[in-house]
């Protein structure tokens, strides 16, 4: 995109958004885009606002695409040091938090009868202040919010009474760092510089600390030849991505692992004291400390705790301890909760204030020291909500201006000189990142090993934050519930992973309802029996099992937060099989769909000349461009960000659990996960996957059979689908060997205000009509329009479909196949390149690059 133009628009955009957000309470008539638009808004053109994602503590940078005053999609900020342009699935689903139909719309006050009743802001503030005053000293519980909001809170109650509560806080790692290096902080991991990465139960590609940044780093490392090893009892997604999975207890393996004598070693520990300490010593022995493992910056999670017990007067700011730390609020006498949504904590609160979601808020966040991420509203608030900061100012009667001004003042202190220009630049950039002085970890103590719990007979329970819902905060997004878990392919449910041997002992098969009991509680959920978990272990993802979290999350799955990791028992409850998983067979049967190779790369020599396919028909002639895509299966981490990005960009409806069970999931791009290459799964289990989408075949089997020309081939190599011409015979879908086409079996409705999210550039399809991936033709058209106005051809990189844009590992490359210098054409010429079902002579435009299983 043309940089100057974007910047220009952005500055103006900032001005108006600021103006709009500032007077959000008093002047809703300032937001009237249709009749009297603000100066910079041109109907049909998008404005982009840079902000920060707050769906997890990683703090990735986002760009929000706004059309006529509404946010439709978020993309990654390519200049941001944390994510470099990628966005994970949960980040893409942030818009579904903004437009969630179950958002709180008014303050709530618990009445005499104990029920929460809607109240006005004044009434709620009065009730809250009175209640807090009566209940004693106020404790504020928030998530990791290092930045202006944290300063504000600490101004009110003091640092001692501010608890940073994160259900996943990595305390064991921080404690091990403190004990061994004297620095009780999470390390900065430089994956891109590593040559051998060994993970001990650390799911760095899923939810671990900063997964998008890590995915980028690991992809870069692999492009330079790095190897990845994972040791642990579970074939997590990260383990499946690794070149080798060492199944076993990672605590034992970490203690006895011998690092090879080479540069660029990096070991990462999961959140366990034994593992963390062993890994620290391992890293130190291998020379990784202060090279690939650094302590220059401190993390926003460093002061966080995952154990919570509060009493007296409690103010909970945008976190949900009643769900993820059950009984944490039992002793509290008066609870005030600030939340955008109804949650288990609001259900336990006495006064509830509805606050903005991050896309509507001002704020900042410092995930790592020196990386100051700025948050600005991308649109005026959807409902009558307020900034969390503003609510706190009024609750605490603080002498502060509105939160936006408070934020600005804080930044003025960061950079007093030339502040106005600095402020504008920071908003345009998405924040301000500065160099920090080096801090080396010098001392290496050898404290006694932490006492590992004795190995008990029975099963060991592992709970892990799920890829889709993290610690549960993203569970109310329909897209994420519908996103199949990459390993189990389960949707709209939770499960317990169990090995076939253990399952056979209890008579359990996949889908049966089971009860898992630990010392601290039990839950009931469905079983998933497979070889991706070692015998003697069971694993349950966290994040489901909400009771009060909106229509998409309530009553779905089971809440494993109450269970302690460790010894557990499992028991079969019923043989009903209602676990919904997409996908037919788990095996490729040698059909080479998701290819993997163990042969070492031969160093860049071009592949042998492939024999030209014979054809009866003349080759296609293309206008100026022939659009094509290359998907690098070695970089792809199966995180699902592309899938959710596609949902957001292309107005794809959510089908719901029952309909997905009937095979009607609507995603245009899907992850096909197989356990190996052949007709039997490998031992130990291996996972290979690919992304399947419309291949835009030159000889598309779907086009010739459509009776009404609704499917046709355009001059730029795209397989077009004309929605308003489709009569719905479904012959095209039957004739697609890739089964890439989706049919609208129903008329899907979107409850308000979810329909605000719909992308105005993409048709919303009616029932009875076929749809499929279009290579984001709306983006192609937009880019071509721009290029035409500027009197030039499209350059490589001008067009990026939503999936390619979002990928944290940059595994998807898109461009003009007719241009031999384009990235996609070069990718298609690589030795690893192949096409799926090439022998059918469909001539697809999507090239896949084989995944490599490197020898370690």
């Amino acid at each position: 995109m043309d940089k100057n133009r974007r910047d220009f628009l952005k500055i103006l955009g900032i001005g108006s958004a600021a103006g709009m957000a500032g007077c959000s309470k008093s002047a809703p008539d300032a937001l009237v885009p249709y009749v009297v638009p603000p100066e910079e808004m041109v109907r049909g053109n998008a404005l982009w606002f840079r902000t920060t994602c707050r769906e997890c503590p990683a703090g990735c940078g986002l760009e929000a695409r706004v059309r006529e005053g509404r946010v439709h999609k978020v993309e990654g900020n390519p200049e941001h040091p944390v994510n470099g342009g990628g966005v994970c699935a949960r980040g893409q689903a942030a818009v579904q938090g903004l437009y969630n139909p179950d958002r709180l719309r008014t303050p709530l006050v618990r009445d005499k009868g104990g029920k929460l009743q809607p109240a006005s802001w004044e009434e709620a503030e009065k009730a809250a202040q009175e209640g807090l005053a009566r209940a004693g000293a106020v404790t504020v519980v928030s998530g990791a919010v290092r930045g202006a909001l944290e300063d504000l809170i600490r101004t009110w109650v003091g640092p001692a009474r501010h608890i940073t509560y994160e259900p996943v806080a990595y305390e064991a790692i921080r404690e091990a760092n403190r004990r061994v290096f004297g620095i009780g902080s999470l390390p900065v991991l430089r994956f891109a510089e590593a040559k051998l990465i060994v993970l001990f139960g650390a799911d760095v590609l899923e939810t671990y600390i900063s997964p998008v940044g890590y995915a980028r780093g690991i992809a870069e490392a692999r492009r330079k030849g790095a190897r990845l090893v994972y040791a642990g009892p579970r074939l997590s997604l990260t383990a499946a991505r690794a070149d080798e999975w060492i199944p076993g207890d990672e605590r034992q393996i970490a203690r006895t692992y011998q690092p090879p004598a080479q540069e660029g070693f990096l070991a990462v520990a999961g959140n366990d004291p034994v593992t963390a300490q062993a890994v620290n010593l391992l890293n130190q022995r291998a020379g990784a400390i202060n090279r690939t493992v650094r302590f220059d910056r401190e993390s926003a999670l460093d002061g966080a705790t995952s154990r919570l017990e509060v009493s007296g007067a409690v103010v909970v700011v945008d976190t949900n301890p009643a769900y993820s730390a059950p009984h944490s609020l039992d002793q509290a006498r008066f609870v005030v909760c600030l939340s955008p949504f109804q949650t288990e904590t609001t259900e336990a609160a006495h006064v509830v204030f509805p606050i903005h979601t991050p896309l509507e808020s001002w704020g900042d966040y410092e995930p790592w020291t020196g990386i100051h991420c700025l948050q600005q509203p991308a649109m005026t608030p959807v409902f009558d909500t307020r900034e969390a900061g503003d609510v706190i100012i009024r609750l605490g009667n603080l002498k502060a201006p509105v939160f936006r001004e408070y934020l600005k003042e804080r930044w003025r202190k960061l950079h007093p000189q030339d502040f106005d220009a600095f402020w504008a630049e920071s908003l345009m950039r998405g924040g301000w990142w500065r160099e920090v002085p080096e801090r080396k970890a010098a001392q290496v103590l050898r404290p006694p090993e932490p006492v590992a719990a004795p190995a008990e007979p029975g099963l060991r329970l592992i709970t892990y934050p799920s890829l889709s819902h993290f610690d549960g905060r993203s569970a109310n997004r329909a897209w994420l519930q519908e996103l199949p878990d990459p390993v189990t392919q389960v949707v709209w449910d939770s499960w317990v992973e169990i090995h076939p041997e253990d399952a056979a002992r209890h008579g359990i098969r996949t889908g049966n309802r089971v009860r898992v009991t630990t010392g601290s509680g039990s839950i009931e959920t469905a079983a998933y029996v497979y070889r991706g978990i070692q015998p003697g272990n069971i694993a349950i993802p966290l994040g489901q099992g909400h009771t009060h979290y909106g229509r998409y999350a309530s009553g779905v799955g089971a809440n494993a937060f109450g269970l302690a990791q460790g010894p557990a028992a499992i028991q079969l409850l019923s043989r009903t099989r209602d676990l919904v998983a997409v996908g037919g067979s788990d095996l490729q049967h040698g059909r080479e769909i998701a290819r993997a190779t163990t042969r070492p790369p031969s160093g860049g020599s071009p592949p042998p000349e492939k024999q030209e396919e014979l054809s009866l028909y003349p080759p296609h002639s293309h206008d100026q461009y022939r659009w094509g895509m290359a998907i690098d299966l070695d970089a792809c981490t199966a995180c699902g960000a592309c899938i959710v990005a596609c949902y957001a960009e292309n107005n794809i409806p959510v089908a719901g659990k029952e309909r997905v069970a009937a095979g009607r999931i609507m995603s245009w791009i899907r992850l096909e996960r197989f356990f190996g290459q052949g007709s039997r799964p490998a031992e130990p289990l291996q996972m290979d996957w690919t992304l399947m989408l419309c291949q835009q075949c030159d000889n598309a089997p779907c086009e010739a059979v459509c009776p009404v020309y609704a499917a046709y081939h355009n001059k730029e190599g795209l397989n077009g689908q004309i929605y308003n011409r489709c009569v719905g015979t479904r012959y095209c879908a039957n004739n697609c060997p890739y089964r890439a086409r989706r049919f609208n079996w129903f008329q899907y409705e979107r409850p308000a205000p979810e329909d605000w999210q719909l992308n105005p550039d993409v048709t919303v399809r009616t029932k009875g009509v076929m749809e499929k991936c279009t290579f984001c033709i709306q983006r192609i058209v937009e880019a071509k329009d721009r290029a035409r106005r500027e009197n030039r051809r499209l350059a490589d990189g001008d067009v990026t479909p939503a999936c390619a844009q979002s990928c944290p590992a940059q595994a998807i490359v898109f461009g003009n196949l007719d241009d031999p210098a384009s990235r996609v054409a070069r990718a298609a010429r690589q030795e690893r390149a192949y096409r799926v079902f090439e022998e059918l002579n469909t001539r697809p435009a999507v090239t896949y690059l084989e995944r490599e299983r490197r020898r370690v």
Partner: protein
Amino acid sequence: MGNSATLRRRLPTYTTVDADLVKTMRPARRPYYLALLCLAAVAAWGGYAWSVQLRTGLGVAGISSPVGWGFYITTFVFWVGIAHSGTLISAVLFLFRVRWRAAIYRSAEAVTVFAVMTAGLFPLIHLGRPWVAYWLMPYKQMGGLFPNFRSPLVWDVFAVSTYFTVSALFFFTGMVPDLAIVRDRSQGWREKVYGFLAQGWQGTNLQWKHYTAAYVFLAGLATPLVISVHSIVSWDFAMSINPGWHTAIFPPYFVAGAIHSGLAMVATIVIPMRRLFGLETFITREHLASMAKFMIMTGMVLGYSYCVEFFIAWYSNNPYERDLFFYRAFGDYAWALWLLVGCNVLAPSLFFIQRVRYSTPWLIGISLLVNVGMFYERFVIIVTSLGRSFDPFMWSVYVPRWPEVSILAGSLAFFFLLFLLFAKVFPVVSMWEVKELLPLPSKEHRA
């Protein structure tokens, strides 16, 4: 074949032919109306199921991704197949001068017309947007666009509508002299109605001359239709890429299957009809035995086709074909495959036994089995190939839901309803052609 000899033995006369066959159109008694009511109710239930589907979307049915075609297309092909036997008996056997066709050809042609009508509902039922189904018609639409003539579905439009047109014309044209007979034996408003339908037919030599010429040419034109229409319908599958569909054997396979199922349906209808109407003189056991012999042949052809399919799938060494056919024989739908082999090939082989050929209970039983088997043949072809295609991740099983079962039942009811109405309103046996078979009346042999 000795059938004329049989007739000669019983020796109806021109008078008795008229009398016996016109009395089928006497006013009906209560069981008839009861049957009509039941059939109408079932058909109405099918219509209701369709209305639910129109309102809610095709998702109420069991079809899904990847099995996008299920019961509806199975039933469509089933009915089109049944339609072929009528034309075979009326046109092809006419050209080959097979005499025994005369007594049953009218009912068989009625089966054809009604089956095509029933079949024609299903392209509408299975469409995602049936309200724009007319876009498949070949006229200039949307600024110059015509339908895609490369698509087998458009060939279907042409083939099935041509088949309906030609069959209906043939049916009605063949009936005109008979309608004249009925006209001449009716009074009052009935005479007027049948007179109108008979178009003023007198039977002059000129009329007969042109009529028989037209009859021959229509038969000659309808004959290639028997082969081509079901070939075209088979190309709905053979022109696609799916393993198990993409095979050159489908046109003859489907045509043989069509004739097989059509004969079975004609037998299923004609056997009770001859008992209820007392038409044993005209539709004799010889007729039924001839049909049974025909069914032996078509059954053998089908059996051979099944063997060839499996053999070629193995011989081709194509992994997708091999896997699919293995799945057909031993996978989720193996029960359907073995059922259909038993019903289509083994059951009609019993007709080798003469006693079986001449026994009406056996005839009806085996015909019903063949009908069931032919339904499942199409079902297995469609559902296994779609549910077990190239990409194992998209393998799936199809389970029909209540709308599909209701609409299948409704279509059967609709078909039988039409036939019941026909049986009471039009002569079910062709009187003038039966007369043609009789010896010409002479002074000694009074007419």
